């Protein structure tokens, strides 16, 4: 089956084409096409996973472009299937399938329903293509396609200016990261002449690549990952991306978009692993992001925003895991996170569906109205907080363990602090939304449990959030699947485990004290920590900084360039005039170096000559004839005199 793994992305591609071309004629605008094709892809992906787990694999290479005939340069495309690919294929198709199923209920009645399903299929296709890519260029192509799909989905409610802005922001921000990725490709290509992962690995293994090339190439690729995986400092698009429909958020956050960045690093891990400097930067960015995003999440009041920042934070963990040299742990966290983050978003969607608001201060006590949603949320929340035996615990613990044993223990402590904050804000959300007294009775009265299409995915994911971690570790399944020769076998460290679990429990306790009981006065805390509160509330002013330092200057530059271009004409005329004056007074040099300059000079000259000569063009035949005759006579005389 692995030989034909291209079928997996082909199915959603087909579904996209079908829905795009014939959505008006399909029942329910083609939603069932999308769901069934994705389900088929999921089944196929499971088959591939099973095969790969039993030692199969595939690598198919096709020529893509050949340049030159004497010493031809060949660029190939192809796909490869190994453990990393297989697990990602399963996760992506699985989450995508559940999200599409869920959307049946959530998006029901949307006016661009068909288009929504089409784009979801396209999104899935791009992500699957990315996962299968066997070289950097193919990966880059799908990387960009993922960006476009997210752009379309985030901008789904394009009547809203905020959605428009968010869509553009997502695309541009990730594209800035892609610039780094692209430059990384350029560096590696010009040094090695190949972009295929296996060839790069071989070359690096032989030591045929200069260390600085590896480091710069890796850092470039890291740029792409930072953009897509919303790492600091390119994280700004992800919270805004909440403008998209909630199931899309689930998809973006769990399986497709943001996972792409982490996957990129994992896929090109041989490059990173060969460069300690690059790995250090990876770890640093991961740790900083994990902590930084967690601080912001603690003060957000929009339910989806909290989850968004928590995603950024968790992605930081994954990147940290990769950075400290543990590929398996990073990918493990990616997988478990896919389960519980998709779950959390879908429950959030369910809550929003029921209450028609995202503002947590208008909720409260909803567990009575929405029991399935509430319970599954708690399962996801505990997994997020990393409490044993939930899924998140295993993966987070693994990352922290590696960090603890790495060269830079500071990253470990940052991770612990972030874990504490994670538990705190998760508890905060749980209490604000599901427990306590309803704060908006009107909304509370109208709140209702969601239809089965929405709750079934919740239950499936809920179960996985509880047992997923342990399940994947059964028989060392996961570590065998994604194997990267670790420097040393790490034995479980009770201190690390204790600290991780302890910080999580402490976070829950603090959250309970603040939100579950009235023991701590929130206003007093806010007042005491007011500068910090403001800082977190305004997301460390990163958006403002970018606006001021990048967006405005670029727009200003564009306006300036446009002005120069449009007014070059005037400028030149004036310049010519001024230059004439300057020349006549013997004062200065002639300056025509403005756009349009020389040409307009010629034009002006032509006009002047035209003015002078137009008098002769009276339109009278005889005048022309006279001129002709005189010229002939003059020519005759000249010819005679000169020619002798």
């Amino acid at each position, binding site marked *: 089956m692995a030989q034909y793994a291209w079928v997996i992305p082909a199915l959603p591609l087909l579904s996209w084409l079908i829905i795009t071309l014939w959505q008006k004629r399909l029942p329910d605008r083609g939603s069932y096409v999308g769901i069934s094709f994705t389900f088929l892809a999921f089944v196929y992906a499971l088959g591939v996973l099973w095969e790969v787990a039993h030692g199969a694999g595939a690598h198919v290479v096709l020529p893509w472009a050949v340049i030159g005939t004497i010493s031809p340069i060949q660029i190939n495309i192809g796909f490869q299937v190994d453990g990393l690919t297989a697990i990602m294929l399963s996760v992506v198709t699985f989450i995508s399938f559940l999200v599409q199923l869920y959307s049946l209920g959530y998006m029901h009645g949307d006016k661009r329903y068909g288009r929504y399903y089409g784009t979801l299929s396209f999104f899935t296709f791009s992500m699957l293509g990315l996962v299968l890519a066997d070289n950097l260029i193919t990966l880059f192509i799908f990387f960009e396609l993922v960006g476009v799909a997210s752009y379309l989905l985030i901008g789904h409610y394009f009547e809203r200016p905020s959605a428009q802005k968010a869509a553009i922001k997502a695309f541009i921000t990730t594209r800035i990261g892609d610039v780094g990725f692209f430059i990384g490709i350029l560096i590696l290509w010009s040094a090695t002449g190949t972009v295929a992962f296996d060839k790069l690995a071989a070359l690096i293994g032989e030591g045929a690549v200069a260390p600085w090339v590896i480091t710069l190439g890796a850092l470039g690729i890291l740029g792409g990952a930072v953009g897509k995986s919303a790492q600091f400092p390119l994280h700004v698009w992800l919270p805004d991306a909440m403008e998209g429909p909630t199931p899309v958020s689930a998809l973006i956050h769990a399986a497709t978009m943001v996972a792409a960045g982490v996957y990129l690093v994992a896929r090109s891990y041989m490059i990173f692993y060969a460069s300690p400097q690059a790995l250090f930067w990876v770890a640093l960015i991961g740790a900083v992001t994990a902590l930084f995003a967690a601080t912001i999440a603690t003060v957000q009041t929009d339910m989806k925003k909290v989850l968004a920042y928590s995603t950024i934070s968790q992605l930081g963990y994954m990147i940290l895991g990769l950075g400290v040299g543990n590929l398996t742990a990073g990918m493990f966290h990616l997988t478990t996170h896919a389960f519980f983050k998709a779950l959390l978003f879908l429950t959030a969607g369910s809550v929003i569906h029921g209450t028609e608001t995202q503002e947590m201060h208008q909720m409260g006590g909803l567990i009575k109205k929405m029991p399935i949603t509430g319970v599954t949320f708690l399962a996801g929340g505990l997994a997020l907080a990393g409490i044993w035996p939930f899924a998140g615990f295993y993966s987070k613990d693994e990352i922290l363990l590696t960090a603890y044993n790495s060269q830079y223990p500071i990253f470990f402590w940052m991770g612990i602090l972030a874990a504490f904050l994670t538990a705190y804000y998760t508890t905060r959300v749980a209490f604000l939304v599901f427990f306590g007294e309803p704060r908006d009775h009107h909304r509370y009265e109208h709140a209702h449990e969601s239809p089965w299409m929405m709750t079934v995915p919740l239950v499936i994911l809920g179960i996985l959030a509880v047992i997923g971690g342990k399940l994947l570790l059964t028989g060392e399944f996961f570590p065998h699947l994604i194997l990267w020769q670790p420097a040393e076998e790490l034995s479980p460290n009770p201190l690390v485990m204790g600290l991780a679990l302890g910080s999580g429990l402490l976070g829950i306790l603090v959250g309970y004290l603040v939100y579950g009981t009235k023991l701590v006065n929130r206003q007093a805390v806010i007042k005491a920590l007011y500068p910090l509160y403001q800082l977190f509330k305004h997301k460390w002013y990163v958006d403002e900084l970018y606006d001021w330092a990048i967006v405005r200057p670029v727009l200003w530059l564009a306006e300036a360039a446009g002005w120069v271009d449009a007014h070059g004409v005037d400028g030149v005329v004036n310049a010519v005039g001024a230059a004439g004056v300057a020349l006549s007074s013997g004062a200065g040099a002639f300056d025509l170096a403005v756009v349009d300059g020389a040409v307009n000079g010629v034009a002006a000259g032509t006009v002047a000559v035209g003015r002078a000569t137009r008098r002769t*063009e*009276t*339109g*009278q*035949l*005889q005048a022309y*004839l*006279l001129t002709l*005759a005189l010229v002939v006579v003059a020519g005759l005389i000249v010819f005679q005199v000169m020619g002798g």
Partner: protein
Amino acid sequence: MVSLHGYLVLAAFLFGLGLYGALARTNAIRILMAIELMLNAVNINLVAFAQYLTPGLVTGAVFAVFVITVAAAEAAVGLAIVLLVARQRGVIEVDKINLMKW
């Protein structure tokens, strides 16, 4: 014997008269006539050159035949245009017609 030079001078003066006429008169038909004079002057030149410089060859005469043909065509179309313009605009003086300016 008449020399080639004699014919050439005759033609030159005939042409000069035609040129004067084409320039000095305003009546379009008169201008056409003046042009005919010039064409005839050219023909004299052609035939004279042919007979004196390339005896035995008739190229010059052939040219003259064509010139006459063109002259006939020109007269026909030219007169038609003149009449048309005169009918439509009521003038035949070329200095009052400056269509070519536009």
